């Protein structure tokens, strides 16, 4: 047994008899090398972990955590949680801790990435910068190892490890920018030079941007845009909290989207990142959210599952109590079209590299406003003719996936960056018949 599971067992062993208890330890080794103006200006690393104790005293729950793991701190943690639970009201939705169960055997850990040093990250950054001579580069390269151990009074014992690495950067001319993003469980998989060339190419192509009038345009959305759509749809339309509170328009078993649209959450996919267990100790189960345009199911934690009379899908996370369970390994299925083929098929439309600052206007209709960023282009008669100034859009992320509006999906699905961060959505380029831009560069 690992020392982290032993630490959790030590903690629950200190809890007075008769109380339900679960201890979890989430250890992190995170490092991030940040660059701007084509030089590394911030370079950080942290090592540590958070030990969390959940106590339930006669249906009254409380959670306490600490970053300190000496014996006195463990005793203080128990006292804090037990005191809080004793004073808490009974939670009528309490469903008990997760029992021991089989957990998917995923392999999202790369030892070399776990021990990567700052020189290795700096080398990736140097490659990215070198791909854009004469341009100004900014972004980051990071590596992380996440370790989670958990033990509870129902016999659950688990420890898992996962790694992640990302390179995210822009190249800038004096008047434009282009972005590239790469994500993997392995730092070795990140090609700084290739990503830098992509960003530099977009930046140079974005020079001399012209203003276009807001309005409805046929659009090609590159993977980072589609990842943001996938993240919003996953959380707001297919999250268990929204479902249990009647705040979603998604109706399982109903054809609500274009037949080309299939979205699933699947930590067992070989390219997924993260651990196969949630914060409540429930194994993460693959969940079909949309299959060939038909809404299928919701992601749940134990609380929302109990409310809806189903089993938890293992999607509890740190802030589930406030925001509800969330899908974090979303796969928007790709197609067989290339970006060039999509461009060639458009009489007049826009090509968008990235969204920026997307915010929900209404979580039920999923109306979102945001802007384009780091490379937006006008397509005329099957060709990219101009770079265009950034535009603001106001659009329903639910409705844009409607039957007939999805014209093609790209063959370029990848782990993309999203409004909610990198690594949680695998997405392709998407060709849509219409998209509402509601403001131009001048408002």
């Amino acid at each position, binding site marked *: 047994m690992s020392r982290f599971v032993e630490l959790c067992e030590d903690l629950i062993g200190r809890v007075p008899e008769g109380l339900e208890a679960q201890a979890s330890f989430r250890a992190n080794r995170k490092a991030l090398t940040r660059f701007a103006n*084509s030089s590394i*200006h911030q*370079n950080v*690393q942290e090592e540590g972990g958070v030990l969390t104790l959940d106590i339930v005293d006669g249906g009254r729950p409380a959670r306490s955590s600490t970053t300190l793991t000496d014996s006195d701190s463990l005793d203080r943690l128990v006292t804090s949680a037990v005191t809080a639970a004793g004073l808490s009201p009974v939670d009528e939705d309490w469903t008990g801790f997760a029992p021991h169960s089989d957990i998917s055997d995923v392999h999202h850990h790369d030892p070399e990435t776990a021990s990567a040093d700052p020189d290795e990250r*700096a080398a990736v950054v140097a490659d990215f910068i070198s791909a854009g001579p004469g341009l100004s580069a900014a972004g980051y390269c990071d590596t992380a190892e996440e370790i989670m151990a958990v033990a509870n009074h129902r016999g659950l014992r688990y420890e898992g490890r996962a790694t992640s690495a990302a390179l995210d950067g822009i190249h800038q001319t004096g008047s434009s920018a282009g972005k590239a993003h790469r994500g993997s469980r392995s730092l070795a998989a990140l090609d700084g030079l290739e990503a830098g060339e992509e960003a530099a190419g977009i930046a140079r192509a974005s020079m001399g941007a012209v203003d276009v009038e807001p309005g409805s345009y046929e659009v090609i959305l590159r993977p980072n845009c589609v990842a943001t759509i996938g993240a919003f749809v996953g959380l707001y339309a297919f999250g268990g909290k929204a479902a249990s509170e009647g705040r979603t328009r998604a109706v399982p078993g109903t054809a609500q989207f274009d037949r080309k649209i299939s979205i699933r959450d699947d930590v067992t996919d070989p390219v997924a990142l993260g651990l196969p267990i949630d914060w409540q100790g429930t194994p993460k189960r693959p969940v079909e959210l949309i299959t060939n345009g038909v809404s299928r199911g919701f992601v749940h934690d134990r609380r929302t599952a109990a409310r809806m009379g189903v089993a938890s899908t293992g999607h509890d996370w740190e802030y589930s109590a406030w925001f509800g369970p969330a899908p974090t390994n979303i796969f928007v299925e790709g197609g067989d079209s290339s970006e060039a083929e999509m461009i060639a098929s458009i009489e007049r439309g826009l090509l968008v590299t990235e969204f920026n*600052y997307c915010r929900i206007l209404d979580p039920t209709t999923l109306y979102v406003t945001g802007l384009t*960023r780091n490379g937006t282009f006008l397509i005329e008669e099957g060709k990219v003719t101009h770079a265009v100034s950034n535009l603001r859009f106001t659009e329903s992320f639910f409705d844009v996936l409607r039957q007939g509006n999805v014209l093609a999906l790209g063959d370029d699905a990848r782990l993309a960056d999203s409004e909610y961060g990198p690594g949680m959505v695998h997405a392709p380029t998407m060709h849509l018949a219409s998209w509402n831009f509601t403001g131009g560069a001048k408002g």
Partner: protein
Amino acid sequence: MFEISAAAVEGALSAGATYADARTVVARHQRLGAADGRIEGIVEDEKAGVGVRALIGSSWGFYAVNDFGKAREAGERAVAIAKASARVPGRPLPLADIPIVETAYATPVLENPFGVGIGEKADLLVRVTSEMLDAPGISRTSGKLEFWDTDKWFVSSQGHRIHQNIVESGCGMDALAIGEGESQVRSYPQSFGQYETGGFEVIRKWDLPGHVGRVAEEAAALLSADHCPSGVTDVVLEGSQLALQIHESVGHAIELDRILGWEAAYAGTSFLDLDQLGSLRYGSELMNIHADATIPGALGTFGFDDEGTPAQRVPIVQEGTWVGVLSGRDTASIAGLPPGGMVRADGYARIPMVRMTNVGLEPGPHSLEEIISDTRAGILMDTNRSWSIDDRRLNFQFGCEVGWLIKDGRLGRMLKNPTYTGITPQFWGSMDRLAGGDEWVHWGTPNCGKGQPGQVGHTGHSAAPARFHDVRVGVLG
């Protein structure tokens, strides 16, 4: 605890740092949430550790560890990280001079928030969420209380030894009405809750139970309200919405690290150019903005920032002209400006960076009642619901929870889904009426995201209701 920070600094100096500082932090946090008359979560957490920052040439190296026994090693590792940055060097980072002090600061607290029993706190949330849920037309309710008690021991290689104890308290509640394919919400005191430095007296002052009836009634009424019309009209913003407008279109734009390009890839840059400092027209003559970390009770108030620079009141916009920035020792030195004492970190494990303090709009001569009486046609918008702004802080769109038509100096019918959009200098240039007096409030924003790895900042924004001319409203797809 000073010895832990000192060990980290010594480790960094011995490894070759030209400058180093360290913060040993013990932060206690408590959050209670309730929904529909039931407690949904009681969470207490303690984050303790030491973070050390080492400067070599052009780059900071930063290392954080939660094992106090590894403080010296953390300093050495920070230097190794800074040295790795030399593979991609920039120009040297000078540090602006600041006073070297050994001192202490503590938030004035009348009632220790951790001394108030969880039972009393839970009862308050259960009561307000139950009462709102009992109101006609309300489907869901929620409420929260949140408290921090943070001790920081700061030591620098230049001789600083500063202990600070910062106490913060916040509360909020909302009522949700769900209709046919839509949901409408009303919140109090504002959409994220109201947060201040201080103790449980903050919670008592905002009196959640006293506002249950109005909040629930307005949320239910929104379902049958008319949609906000589309067009161009005068807009009157209530104070908390104006506070967020300040945060997004002034506070972030004046961050010197953004202006210098340090945040270009993520948070973005700024439409401001240092060549325009002292001459750029930011808004109308009614626009006077300060960054003031000394306001008693405001959320962005402290004694010293996380570089040891004393809290200051710095003019940012004077009678509509841009005159100041938010800065730290390195950014200020590069720009040739005095350091503003505006560098803070989100806990021990994050590197300090330029952060808003209390970036607020000075009060004006009017009242909300006078502004409405003086408006022939317009819309009053209240309480933020959504916010979005571009990476240069120019093109923004905000949505509010509720609006009311103003016609011939009187408030008219309620409006749902009110939104407005604009371009920063034009919008502020159109401000022609500004309230003050008791309507000037030090609003707190507890959720300001910035940096990579991500950091959450706590900022303050003093504001009172104001009127803006010819604003585009009612923007939906």
